[in-house]
């Protein structure tokens, strides 16, 4: 298991993110449970998970193409 490393903010503080009602409407549908699970992982583990997801998506596309033939 890789060591935990979330990185550290460097440089100037970026100004606060201003509210936007459209973005806020989209935020209501975000599944925060998935985000919380990801935040428990190291950065490296997040990329390993992404690569697994890519493999799965590739396999689904292949299966879909085969089914349409």
């Amino acid at each position, binding site marked *: 298991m890789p060591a935990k490393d979330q990185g*550290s903010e460097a440089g*100037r503080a*970026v100004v606060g*993110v201003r509210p936007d009602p459209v973005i806020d409407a989209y935020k209501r*549908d975000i599944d925060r449970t998935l*985000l919380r699970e990801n*935040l428990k992982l190291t*950065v490296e583990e997040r*990329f390993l998970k992404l690569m697994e997801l890519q493999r799965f998506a590739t396999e689904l596309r292949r299966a879909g193409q085969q089914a349409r033939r």
Partner: protein
Amino acid sequence: MTDFASLFRLLAQHNVEFILVGGAAATAHGSARLTEDLDIVYRRTPENIARLAACLGAHHPYLRGAPPGLPFRFDAETVQRGLNFTLTTDLGALDLFGEIPGGGAFEDLQQDAIEIKLFGVTCRCLGLRRLIEVKRAAGRPRDLEAIAELQALLDENEGQAPTKGES
């Protein structure tokens, strides 16, 4: 499929100066969305362009979506004459940006980058707040959901409870 681990190692081990942006930067910050390519803003100094061209050259970079057989040569001169390149490589899809809308060049983003350690190397990644700013400035409707997720991540990082209607 993009081999993120090998791309990170390749760029870092050749001392290419770059900042991770886009969907992969969102992944680094905890995004649950699928992204298929690696987006980086590279520093446009002659030395860095030479390092970038040298390290990618062996991995057959080619313009993504272009018909096969075009006389495309990826070398320092090509990178110097161009700015942004969307490439396929043996290691997967790689987008090289000299500048990004709403963000500018490497030097404009550098101060808002964080260092991340992964796959045995250290890379710069655009900080979460600046990533949100850049995506918002780009103004693309397809980014709305991704921006909302990044803002939710910011809330989670800052310990803010979801507002009414958010899970």
